[in-house]
């Protein structure tokens, strides 16, 4: 019987099978940030096990609270920084070079088709966009990953989600994934890999595929995954050109990771997105999703554009398309956080930052801060935020605050009107 992409990656990285249901995988990349890694580091030190399995396979960034906002966050940064220096971890990204992990690491070419990736961050599933198996893990898994280069998983089951049709102008990958989460519910994909295929995915950029895979965890999935193709090869080409004679050769090589035609899936879902409207969350769970048409008019206090879901250049371009020449409503605070320094400088070059600033947005440095209510845009009790992030949990962006998740296009339209607005009216 044929294999899915996840099964092929598992087979290629198998270290041990302690039971028929459990596998131990060798890891290609272990990613670290300053919130979940310091306790792993101090624990390894306390156990006299302060070692790393391979300095070239460990990548670290300070991204959640940067620049540090207080002594505690400064200490977290310092523990990670000192550790990276002590172990000569070359790929460590500190202030000035840092950005939101799931935007920065792909940009650096660290994630390749067929890789196994873990990080102490649930949105690690983002990296499945490259045809990698990438999973968020806790600090102990991270600790063992750092020390031994292995991680345990249950043998994966895959659900295949085939996306067909043509997206309307004003509708994006964010709307597609919000709709899928609504259909599957917040635990509809628990312990499963979500494999995204079909003509709509084939046409998506890497940025859009990352948005799609980023929110797989919000349906409970272990990983979202796309099949690596020419789009993947082109994105990674600056990092692959010494390895392959041409992009065609790379694309050909990537085929070995593609799911076999006779692979078996635990669930199949086909979605024609031709009539899909922009989607917006309500309530406190990411599966509480409605069409923007139903949510239209809901007042907001803050609009946030950024995060590992939607802080990439394509997201900024789409928001700027609506904001160009307009002012945001007087009742709204607009915050833009470009996800990486590269996104920021590219947005400057393209004149996008000027569009945001002229519209009345505050532009922050790249950081995760506001998305999880840690810094740079925390909500007050009772305030409402239209946000391009990934979680609308109670208190997520600040105690007592309310979050409506949406695409950058919808967020920009909402900023202009001062209440939730269908972006299709403004493009």
């Amino acid at each position: 019987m044929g294999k899915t992409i996840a099964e092929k990656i598992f087979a290629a990285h198998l270290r041990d099978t302690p039971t028929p249901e459990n596998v131990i995988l060798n890891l290609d990349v272990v990613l670290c940030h300053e919130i979940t890694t310091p306790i792993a580091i101090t624990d390894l030190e306390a156990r006299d096990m302060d070692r790393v399995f391979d300095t070239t396979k460990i990548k670290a960034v300070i991204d959640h609270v940067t620049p540090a906002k207080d002594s505690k966050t400064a200490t977290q940064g310092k523990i990670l920084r000192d550790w990276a220096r002590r172990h000569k971890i070359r790929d460590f990204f500190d202030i000035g070079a840092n950005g939101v992990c799931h935007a920065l690491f792909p940009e650096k070419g660290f994630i390749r088709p067929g890789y196994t990736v873990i990080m102490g961050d649930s949105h690690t599933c983002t990296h499945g966009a490259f045809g990698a198996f990438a999973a968020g893990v806790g600090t102990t898994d991270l600790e063992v990953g750092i020390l031994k280069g292995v991680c345990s998983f249950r043998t994966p089951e895959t659900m295949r989600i085939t996306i067909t049709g043509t997206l309307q102008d004003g509708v994006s990958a964010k709307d597609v994934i919000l709709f899928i989460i609504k259909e599957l519910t917040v635990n509809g994909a628990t312990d499963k890999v979500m494999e995204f295929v079909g003509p709509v995915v084939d046409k998506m950029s890497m940025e859009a595929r990352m948005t799609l895979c980023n929110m797989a965890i919000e349906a409970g999935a272990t990983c979202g995954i796309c099949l690596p193709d020419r789009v993947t090869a082109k994105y990674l080409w600056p990092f692959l050109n010494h390895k392959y004679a041409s992009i065609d050769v790379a694309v050909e090589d990537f085929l070995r990771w593609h799911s076999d035609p006779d692979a078996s899936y635990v669930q199949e879902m086909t979605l024609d997105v031709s009539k899909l409207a922009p989607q917006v969350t309500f309530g406190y769970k990411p599966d509480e999703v409605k069409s923007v048409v139903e949510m239209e008019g809901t007042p907001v206090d803050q609009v946030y554009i950024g995060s590992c879901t939607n802080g990439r250049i394509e997201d900024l371009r789409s928001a700027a398309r609506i904001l160009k020449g307009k002012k945001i409503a007087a009742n709204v605070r607009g915050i833009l956080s470009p996800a990486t320094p590269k996104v920021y400088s590219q947005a400057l070059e393209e004149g996008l930052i000027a569009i945001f600033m002229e519209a009345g947005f505050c532009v922050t440095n790249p950081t995760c801060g506001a998305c999880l209510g840690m810094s740079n845009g925390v909500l007050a009790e009772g305030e409402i935020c239209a946000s391009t992030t990934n979680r609308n949990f109670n208190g997520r962006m600040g105690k007592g605050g309310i979050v409506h998740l949406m695409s950058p296009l919808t967020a920009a339209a909402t900023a202009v009107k001062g209440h939730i607005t269908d972006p299709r009216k403004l493009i």
Partner: protein
Amino acid sequence: MKEFGGKALFLDRSDINTDEIIPAKYLTENTKLALQSYILEDLKLGGFDPRRDIEGKGVIITRANFGCGSSREHAVWVFEVNDINVVIAESFARIFRQNMYNCGMLAIELPKKDIETLFTLGEEVEIGVDLVGCTLTVHGDKKVVIPFILNEFDKNLVEAGGWLAYADKNY
């Protein structure tokens, strides 16, 4: 190996997420013990007050998809430092469940009907966990014995005292 069991705390809702268990603003703490007083701080549940209801409890009984959301192991540590070493639920989010076993703690999944039974045994419920026989002995308004399934690998993690000790020995 740890002793498991104790008085039960009932959290009667599905989809309780890690932000509710321990809000992100406390993730700047660099020790597990510093998390202790923030347990379930943002959980909105009728009549529940963490400052009153946590004391003396050793087991949490809850509904489906417990621990969804973030990967933060702080959500497990905050239970550990409050002497809660067992969570019994209809289902768990994968990362939370793995984090429990990785810390040598128990995340026990029971069929919906057994969870329903547990919720009908009154407010004062004491749970004993037999890891060898894989049964829960529940003393409430009446005594009930409920079997559970424990994956062999997860059991080995618990016996080893967690994934780090297990991995250090085996890999």
